[in-house]
């Protein structure tokens, strides 16, 4: 089989990850790795029923166990201010599950106690001594059952959306219909969620927290404990993967804050891998019906997409599952419906490609199915229904290079060699199939403030309170600033992960590069102006001060009309008697965007081998072609796409939560049984980009990338499996049992 991705012949000359060395040499410190004098260790005890109330909880033995410093339960908790709504008509500041608020159990594994001791081992042992008795109630944890027994939630966001005529697809000449299922998937980043808390007095706290949003975490803590901004310090220097699981301040973090306050000592709470399945969200299970009708030429006549998914019984979680069906293709008649059923599980949360990753599975499989009925190439069918303007609102796109991405990916993959008839190709006793799909995700840009400091030695320091959950934010920002200022990489420092820095956005929705990158880009323009201004006092340039007259390259200002006249940035500062130039750049949305729709796109191409006797599926080759605007940092961009595809392989072939619905408990909540891809599952993955700037969204020209890397991938695999075998698998993951 093919090479592994690290054998790739491509020579990367681009900037390496600026924090890569620290990460692979163990220098990078994660939230669980901060030691301090008197540090205590907290262990969370979970309920082992799925619904009901705690009748009694015995903490005696635990409290007496050696080394124990304290135990928090709903009976002895000092409730933080944010638990109680000041005004009864409004919700309390703390959203979601208020840990230890009362005796009600909403899901199996819900924290019922926090045990704190002087060592992790002692806390673990004492936690095992906590005994609870419950009044149990009936419950359900599975979607299929909930759909039979219960009514979905009601509200505007769940209303049927009808564009054009509701049942138009039914009267079309060519029709496909199917029901698709996908189990709960769990983010499972390598790094466990961890919170280290240090209170200084009653109203000041420092927290080392695994979060994708240092400012949002800071805000949550301020609101929960009624603290001022300057008295809540959140540090997140490194994140060992997030995938969306670190987008919220979860109950364990609140528990740590409450517990540390109680014992008056710094406290560390780290989740176990098992708790990672129940306490920090998951991609919710979905059962989806889709129907598509087209005319004999492949023009879409109508589409219907109904998604059913789960949420918890205490919070309504929704995501854009059906939006893609309304937004991707030009089709006059589209009806979508989204039903959400509360079950006795914890609240789901956004997971890489939230919504679209789920919705793209039925949509892109159905399109594939349609292409075979029409005897038309799947790409041709998609081009036939290509949306030139946003089908949802008629707006033009800020940029759309999806056509180019189809072409680029198809060429790279060798799509033209595809045999149009399924179940015809064999290689060494394996059936061979190829498949493709499209992924779409909104391109966003939010507000950010960026601190810039040009130092006397010519070093540029940039600061903003974002965290980097893995894409390489600091690297991309370094690249943008290096290009803009003509500075070598080692003269640039990008500081993040500290809530006291100028406020930056939460890292989610593939918006970091657009949002923070925009601030870096305009910030560098401002800096150039300030440099030109400062250069007034340097005789070299005469009286020229207008920034347009200068090039900024190799750490120097160069006069365009006479390149022999130049000055290094440090000389400019020196001549002006300045020790630094410091300012804060504000960056926000481009108001012009009101008139546009913005999306990123990915086209996935997959070659699979399917064993005719054992049903084993191997991904032999994967190519992903992206329209993510301008590619700012090619190396991290490729990594980002490759990582998304690896996640996609997991979702397509192996990731599956197993919950015994009689008990509401997880069966495979560990890495031996919940499978994510290993190297042997991952072939050579090629990521290619159209690399054309979006001229409107932001000054960098970038769009988002993290989500599209995964959106649609499962469909591409299912389509390839169909091409190999003639079997249409509508149930993820595609394990061997489904193909024999």
């Amino acid at each position, binding site marked *: 089989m093919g090479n592994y991705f690290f054998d790739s012949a491509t020579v990367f000359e681009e900037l390496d990850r600026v924090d890569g060395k620290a990460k692979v040499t163990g220098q990078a410190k994660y939230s669980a790795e901060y030691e301090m004098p008197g540090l205590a260790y907290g262990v969370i005890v979970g309920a*082992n029923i799925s619904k009901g109330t705690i009748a009694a909880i015995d903490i005696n033995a635990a409290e007496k166990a*050696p*080394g124990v410093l304290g135990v928090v339960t709903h009976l002895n908790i000092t409730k933080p201010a944010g638990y109680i709504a000041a005004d009864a008509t409004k919700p309390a500041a703390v959203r979601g599950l208020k840990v230890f608020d009362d005796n009600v159990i909403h899901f199996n594994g819900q924290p019922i106690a926090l045990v704190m001791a002087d*060592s992790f*081992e*002692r806390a*673990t*042992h004492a936690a*095992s001594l906590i005994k609870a008795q419950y009044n149990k109630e009936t419950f359900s944890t599975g979607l299929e059952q909930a759909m039979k027994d219960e009514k979905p939630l009601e509200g505007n966001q769940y209303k049927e959306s009808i564009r054009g005529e509701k049942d138009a697809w039914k009267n079309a000449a060519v029709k496909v219909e199917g029901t698709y299922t996908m189990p709960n998937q769990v983010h499972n980043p390598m790094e466990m969620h961890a919170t280290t808390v240090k209170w200084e007095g009653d109203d000041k706290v420092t927290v080392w927290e695994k979060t994708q949003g240092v400012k949002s975490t800071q805000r949550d803590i301020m609101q929960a404990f009624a603290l001022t901004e300057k008295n809540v310090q959140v540090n997140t220097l490194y994140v060992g993967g997030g995938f969306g699981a670190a987008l919220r301040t979860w109950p364990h973090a609140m528990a740590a804050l409450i517990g540390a306050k109680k014992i008056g000592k710094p406290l560390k709470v780290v989740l176990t891998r098992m708790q990672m399945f129940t306490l920090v969200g998951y991609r919710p299970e979905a059962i989806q019906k889709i129907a598509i009708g087209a005319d004999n030429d492949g023009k879409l006549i109508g589409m219907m997409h109904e998604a059913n998914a789960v949420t918890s019984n205490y919070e309504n979680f929704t995501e854009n599952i059906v939006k893609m069906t309304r937004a991707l293709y030009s089709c006059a008649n589209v009806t979508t419906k989204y039903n959400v059923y509360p079950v006795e599980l914890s609240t789901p949360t956004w997971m890489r490609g939230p919504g679209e990753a789920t919705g793209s599975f039925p949509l892109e499989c159905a399109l594939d199915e349609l292409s075979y009925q029409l005897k038309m190439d799947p790409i041709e069918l998609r081009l036939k229904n290509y949306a030139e303007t946003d089908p949802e609102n008629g707006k033009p796109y800020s940029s759309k290079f999806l056509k180019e991405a189809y072409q680029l990916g198809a060429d790279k993959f060798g799509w033209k060699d595809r045999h149009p008839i399924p179940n015809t190709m064999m290689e060494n006793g394996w059936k061979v199939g190829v498949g493709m799909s499209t992924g779409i995700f909104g391109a966003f840009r939010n507000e950010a403030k960026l601190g810039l400091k040009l130092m006397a030695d010519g070093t540029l320091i940039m600061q903003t309170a974002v965290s980097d959950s893995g894409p390489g934010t600091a690297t991309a920002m370094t690249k943008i600033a290096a290009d803009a200022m003509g500075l070598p990489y080692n003269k640039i420092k990008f500081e993040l992960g500290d809530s006291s820095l100028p406020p930056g956005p939460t890292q989610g929705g593939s918006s970091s590069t657009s949002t923070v990158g925009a601030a870096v880009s305009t910030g560098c323009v401002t800096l150039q102006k300030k440099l030109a201004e400062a250069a007034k006092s340097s005789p070299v340039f005469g009286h020229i001060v207008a920034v347009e007259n200068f090039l900024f390259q190799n750490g120097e200002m160069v006069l365009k009309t006479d390149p022999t006249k130049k000055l290094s940035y440090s000389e400019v500062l020196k001549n002006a008697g300045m020790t630094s130039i410091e300012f804060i750049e504000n960056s926000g949305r481009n108001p012009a965007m009101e008139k546009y729709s913005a999306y990123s796109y990915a086209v996935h191409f997959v070659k699979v081998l399917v*064993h005719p*006797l*054992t*049903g*084993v599926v*191997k991904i032999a080759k994967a190519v992903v072609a992206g329209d993510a605007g301008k590619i700012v940092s090619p190396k991290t961009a490729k990594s980002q796409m490759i990582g998304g595809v690896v996640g996609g392989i997991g979702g397509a*072939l*192996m990731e599956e939560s*197993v919950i*015994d619905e*009689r*008990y509401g*408990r997880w*069966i*495979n909540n560990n890495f*031996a*049984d919940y*499978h994510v*891809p*290993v*190297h*042997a*599952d991952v072939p050579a993955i090629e990521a290619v980009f159209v690399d054309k700037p979006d001229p409107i969204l932001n000054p960098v020209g970038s769009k988002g990338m993290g989500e599209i890397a995964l959106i649609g991938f499962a469909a591409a695999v299912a389509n390839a499996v169909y091409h190999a075998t003639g079997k249409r698998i509508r149930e993820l*993951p595609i*394990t*061997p*049992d489904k193909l*024999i």
Partner: protein
Amino acid sequence: MLLVKWLKKEAPVINFDYVKPTTEQNALTACKDPLAQFIAGGTNLVDLMKRGVTNPEKLVDITGLPMSNIEQKGDNIFIGSLALNSVVAEHELIKKHLPLLSQALQAGASPQIRNMATVGGNMMQRTRCGYFYDLSMPCNKRTPNSGCGAKEGYNRMHAIFGASDKCIAVHPSDMCVALAALDATVLIANGKLLRRVPFKDFHKLPGSNPEKDNNLLKGELITGVEVPINAAFAQHSLYTKIRDRASYAFALVSVAAALEMNGKTIKDIRLAMGGVAHKPWRLTTAEQFLKSKEATPANFKQAAMLALKDATSYGHNQFKLTLAPNTIVHTLHTLAGI
């Protein structure tokens, strides 16, 4: 003998003694206490302790004993019980004479685990049934008479052969499937005599006492295994493991096969399966059927059908009734070059 005793009052976690004897006799004596247990690589036992499934009061670390040798003894290969899974898999004698065993070991776990795991520990590893690991669930194997969570629950990985009403778990080992196919013998020390147990009789079916996985008595020490050399089998053997990902996953089913051919005719054959029973499952009926028959697809198919004669499924594992015979056929086709 090194003895570390955690004082009860100052216990960090669960109290247990830890000793590391250097002679077989001391190890056997140390393990006489009712709640004493041997520990080798610890890759299974430590997990079980962390989950509270097993609570030994004393760990007798046997890794100081001289039991890791691999050597040829007459017509047999002897493998010490402390030989590491990775070392056995890579050993010249094993690759030359017992390639089936080497392949089976390579198919198991991950390189890191194989570097810790020992042959004795691999034989003694416990089932991966999810209910067995979760103290909040019923499981007859862990807590006798608490019920079997898997029978009417999630049983995708479970047995299709030889299960009982009490337990339908499978033995998870790959190595043991090869050793069962190769007619190995287990050598056991108990302080008095050296017991020799045919490999196929070492593990047991769950019956009415699934808490016992095998026929080793309390306090007995596995010292090694002996495997007969068979030149023909060494030429023609194959281990096929079907799993949910390409590596580092337990078998849905696996097949160990060794063939001795006489022209187109099968002179002798060994067949065993993993992932299908509470013990490595020898397919004796299929072996008998194929002896002296031609290696043809039709015969292989028939043998696979015979092998599955007594199979039953429990719901989620129904696919094994198809996957198992298909894997047998696939393995035999590959081995016979058809």
